[in-house]
């Protein structure tokens, strides 16, 4: 059974890709991902502000404690070898590239114009096969217009594409007024793939402490519907690779996403829950399903359930909604 797929022109042995998460902070884990059949890995995100904060913190600590007092001219051994910020991240890319054959995709979560460009370039120089830009921007300012927000996305893509040669994927949120058109404009701005979707950090409240809860909850399979919808809608209508993420807990979600039209399917929470070797299980279940369905390769069923390929295209639109509501009534 052939699981090969192409993502932004990169050849992958499997459509299952590990999405950006802390598991990829260790090179040994990346090796294990490859051994268990991951098609590629998106490295944990490099957060520009975090790096800047770390750098500032390190510098403040170093300058505040070095050559300040006659008895103690320094405090910390081994600081010569201590790298904060980008170097550490780039070193991870280099190490991973040395040890595995699957594509390594850097993930960048920037905040400044300069940051997006600089860090993309550095990732490319370190050997990343592609970059996934994670545009985490909540337009909480009520004065921000739709077009301002959209331009922000498009500018970032254009700037990065002007500065690197490797493919660039955009991990975006679903909250655009005209999602389809936005996808097209991103394509025109130079994006090579869209990753659907970024799960924004959504706060919860602790009603006893009257505080905002900062815990992270893993995505659940029930959350696949929104990305599934948009994958199915966009498939065949844009000249972009499509990656689906969110809610992938087993091969079932992988299958659904590919049926909708995804080139690759990304998961992290299933690996947190079941361990990295679970990749092997997912690949096997995917193959078993393909075998049972008589599909030899992914092409045979990719997009089969997309809007353009199903018999009733309105199933994705308003008419289907009415049908569902009618069903509930009865």
């Amino acid at each position, binding site marked *: 059974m052939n699981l090969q797929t192409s993502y932004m022109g990169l050849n992958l042995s499997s459509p299952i890709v590990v999405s950006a998460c802390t598991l990829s902070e*260790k090179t040994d884990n990346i090796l294990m991902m490859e051994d268990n059949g991951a098609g590629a890995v998106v490295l944990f995100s490099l957060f520009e502000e975090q790096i800047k904060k770390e*750098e*500032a*913190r*390190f*510098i*403040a*600590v170093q*300058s*505040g*404690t*070095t*050559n*300040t*007092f*006659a*008895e*103690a*001219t*320094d*405090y*910390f*051994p*081994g*600081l*010569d*070898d*201590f*790298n*904060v*910020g*980008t*170097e*550490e991240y*780039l070193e991870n890319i280099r190490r991973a590239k040395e040890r595995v054959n699957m594509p390594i995709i850097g993930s960048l979560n920037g905040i400044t114009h300069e940051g997006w460009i*600089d860090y993309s370039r*550095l990732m490319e120089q370190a050997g990343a096969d592609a970059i996934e830009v994670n545009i985490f921007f909540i337009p909480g300012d009520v004065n921000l217009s739709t077009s301002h927000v959209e331009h922000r996305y498009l500018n970032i893509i254009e700037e990065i594409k002007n500065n690197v040669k490797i493919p660039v994927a955009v991990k975006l949120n679903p909250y655009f007024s005209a999602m389809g058109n936005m996808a097209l404009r991103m394509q025109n701005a130079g994006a090579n793939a869209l990753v659907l979707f970024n799960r924004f950090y959504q706060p919860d409240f602790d009603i006893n402490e009257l505080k905002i809860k900062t815990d992270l909850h893993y995505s659940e399979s029930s959350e696949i519907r929104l990305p599934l919808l948009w994958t199915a809608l966009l498939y065949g209508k844009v000249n972009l690779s499509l990656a689906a993420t969110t809610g992938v807990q087993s091969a079932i979600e992988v299958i659904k996403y590919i049926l909708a039209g995804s080139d690759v399917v990304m998961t992290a929470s299933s690996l947190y829950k079941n361990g990295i070797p679970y990749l092997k299980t997912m690949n096997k279940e995917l193959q078993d399903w393909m075998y049972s369905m008589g599909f030899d390769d992914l092409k045979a069923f990719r997009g089969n359930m997309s809007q353009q390929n199903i018999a009733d295209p309105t199933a994705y639109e308003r008419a289907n909604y009415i049908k569902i509501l009618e069903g509930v009534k009865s």
Partner: protein
Amino acid sequence: MSNKKTIATIDGNEAAAYVAYRVNEVCAIYPITPSSTMAELADEWAAKGTKNIWGSVPDIMEMQSEAGAAGTVHGALQTGSLTTTFTASQGLMLMLPNMYKIAGELTATVFHVAARSLAAQGLSIFGDHQDVMAARTTGFAMLSSVSVQEAHDFALIAQAASLRSRIPIIHFFDGFRTSHEVNKLELLSDDQIRSMIPDDLVIAHRNRGLNPESPFIRGTAQNPDIYFQGRETVNTFYNNMPAIVEDVMKDFEKMTGRKYELFQYTGAPDADRMVIIMGSGGETVDETVNALNAAGEKTGVLQVRLYRPFSLEHFIKAIPTSVKSIAILDRTKESGAAGEPMYQDVLASLVDALQQGKIKQLPRLIGGRYGLSSKEFTPAMVKAVFDELKKENPKNGFTIGINDDVTFTSLEYDPAYTLDESEWKQGLFFGLGADGTVGANKNTIKIIGENTDLFAQGYFVYDSKKSGARTVSHLRFGPKPIRAPYLITRADFIACHQFNFIEKVEMLEFAKDGATFLINSPYPKDEVWSKMTGQVQKMIIDKHIKVYVIDATTVARDTGMNGRINTIMQTCYFALSGVLPREDAIKQIKKAIEKTYFKKGQKVIDQNFKAVDGTLANLYEVEYPKTVSAAVHELLIVSKKAPAFVQEVTSVMMAGHGDELPVSKMPIDGTYPSGTTQWEKRNVSDLVPVWEPESCIQCGNCAYVCPHSVIRAKFFHEKFLEKAPEGFASAPINSRGFPETKYSLQVYLEDCTGCNLCVEVCPATSIFDGAKKAINLAEKDPILEQGKKNIEYFENIPWNDRSKIDFSTVHGAQFLEPLFEFSGACAGCGETPYLKLLSQLFGDRLLVANATGCSSIYGGNLPTTPWTVNKEGRGPAWSNSLFEDNAEFGLGMRITADQQLHAAKQYLLGLKDELGENVVTEILDAKQTLESELAVQHLRVQKLKEQLRTMTSSPAQHLLSVADQLVRRSVWLVGGDGWAYDIGYGGLDHALASGRNVNILVLDTEVYSNTGGQSSKSTPTAATAKFAAGGKSGGKKDLAMQAISYGNVYVARVAFGANPQQTLLAMREAEAYDGPSLILAYSHCIAHGYDLKDGLSQQNNAVASGHWPLLRYNPMLRKKNQNPFVLDSPRPTMALRDYAYNELRYKVLTMTNPTVAENLMKHAQDLVNLKWKNYEELATKKASDFVPIA
């Protein structure tokens, strides 16, 4: 063997350690300034796998004390390892017992000593020969090196000589002056080192080691029949030693071309006057001799290299027969002796030589002391000594460099006398400890020293404070080796890295005519002149100084340097100083940036390049008029209200003129007045807290956590507001039923360090701005003048009556007067809030025994000290003995208190008839638990004393001398974890076991903070520290549980940032308990590696993660048949890593060795879990499961 010379610019410590590391297999040490760096480097090299000349990595072992280090050295030597140690001062004193053994057993080893003063009337970390002179009777040979190059060379010569002779050697050089001076030197190659250490001697050394395969006994107990003879067996070895050292020096000369002699004479071959000296001062004498002889005098200097064994033969041979008079300069003091040690050696040797006919007549000999505690020793002083020798009756037992106006030992000298300095480019750089000035200058020396033919020298002077400390860097460059171990007084280049120094620091008095003055100024070139004081303007005009200005802070901000000005100021120096051609200089600085930051990535390098380019574009020469335009005003160092001692003595030290104070101004026995920090308005922070009375909930948290006692609260009747200055802030007190009572929080603006802890801890939100608190940092300048008036008024409002305050709560404790204030501790210090609280709770009857360490430095380092007094003149009586003995020292204080109390009671009973029964009974039966009871007892004792003063009988006089003990004394033994867990642990354990009423407060930073972050037994698992660079794998000692095992010890583990109420409770319980108590106080510290403004939340995390469970063990509960073990913190709610990785000490390992970091963190978490489980079990046990109280 390659003949290529390797040049390095390093300090004396590194120079010595470089060789010592390569010729040893074992090194056991204990950190002590100024020698610590040698051991730290050895540890660092070992961690990186650097090999010695036999291809193995030496085993570097940090011990619990120098005594422990010496024992380990002895053991390693006795089993055949080539072993060394590094130490200084009292550390060497702790090694003395073993040194006698090592020498008595003819064991080859070298102890490298950065020679330092001994603590006598006061501690000093600086350099002289008191320590090594105290070790001269041990049987160790003593070899003195005078410079950085010699420290390097003699480390090898000593090792080779010791192996050849079997006599152990102290190789010493001057602490700080040589140990910390950076100079250019030629490094010995490993081949060269190897060639001096023959295998057969190494093998012979090993073969002398204990070995069960061929056993023998060493270390016997000997009796009167043979001990004496046994002691004489070593004579031959000592007789042979000088010749051996001479041979080694000759071999060394053949190899390197550098010639050394046992007694090295330089100067006129027909000199009539000569100085004999040892250590770095020899270089100064040598250079001065050259100048004097060039001017037609006939002088010479004999530098003593091998001081023990003192070779008469070599000594006599080295002295020109023409010499008529000799001054022997000792850098030590032996009170009561006929002369200082070297003077006596010289005298005895010359008399011996005369008697043997080896010389025809005895020259005139005088001895003198110089340079104690790194006191400057300059060519001017040398000249004065030679001038003294010209006199018919020169002064014997003189001192030089001070003004002894009591016993008139001192020689006068002309400070204006200097040598020809025209070949040197001399630079002085005035900066702050935290602004990177010293680091940049060290870098400059490396750049010039290692990339050009120029020679370089750097020496760095720090002030005694840990927050806002000033630094002065002294840099010299020249075409020949720089032999000038004294400070620069005539600089070609002066840089002022902080603009406010213009008003505070005398800088241009050190400028040569035509010098360059660089100022980091927020004012542009056209404005800066008008911002200078008249004195500065006058100096600039008179000395024809070229002035340059740069706004380095803005350049740093614009070029993304995060406000760091060091690279910018360094670039200015390169551009202006003319040490190198400008283009060349900039090229070199960029090369150095690449080298320094290559591991940090291109982005950092680019940023620094940008800063360099930005600097050149923003550096301007200042055109100035030829007349002074600003007012000349005297700098007011202290308020006129300050007491006489502060006016006459303290203020002189504060102004940086302590060197000018004569002996008569010094207290004779090291006794100084309390409470002098209040006169030193240091103004170290531009940002200070501003209180919003409208928003404040008056909780007292800000006053509680303030490390510098800068925030104080009082409540008072509203009538006090009638005369209050306009703008004096107050609010109605928030307790019900007191409508006429007001509350005021006062910030002592000039004493604040801007640490931000008060803002962090404030629980209230500003009613004006939701993003702010009820206390917020703001610019100081606009509010300073008004603030001063407010403070003055606030001070006139009486402190609230202690007996009427409920200070069992944090809210109440804020109204207690702190008697520990404005210390020089780091901004945001995690230790001082505990001390302040201690002083608030028990200050007027408090005795403090303070172990050496951070707390003794910010607590007792002159010029000003923070322990102060209340309006009755009562306050903490504080003393520091040593590092290792503090528990015993404090126990002694307790015993005195008990003994004198007993005596006082006896006398009272004996004088019952004269004093009246009521008086006696009331005093003897007084309860002294509540503050009101203590207040009444104080009054009773005052009255008693008044009565006794009218009586003349001996018992009455005796009672008067001990009557103060009738008020319950509170004895506290204070120190850090280095003391409590390591060096002082034996004594601490004994004090706890004594059952006496001592209270021990351990300010636990989990590392040696004062000496620079060495690992202690309190250092937690998975943290890095010096000597645990690879992450500490062992567990942290549970001192609490050890103390609990006694059963009758009150024990608490507290963290004021996590639970201030529990801290308060524990301190009060400990003090109230009539027995030993131990409080382990979590103290966040700069050695943890994060911004201390987050200290409180990090304390909270320490508790929340289970790293620092809060507990109390109260024997009184056990006595009442209750469980004495109380767990005061809830179950851990966060993972250890979430606490730990906020701190660089843990985080660094995740970068340098992630796998080890991960494993250690897992292990550390397991330990936390286990500890918590055990504590929980204890907290749920029955009273009968614990040790019963007798």
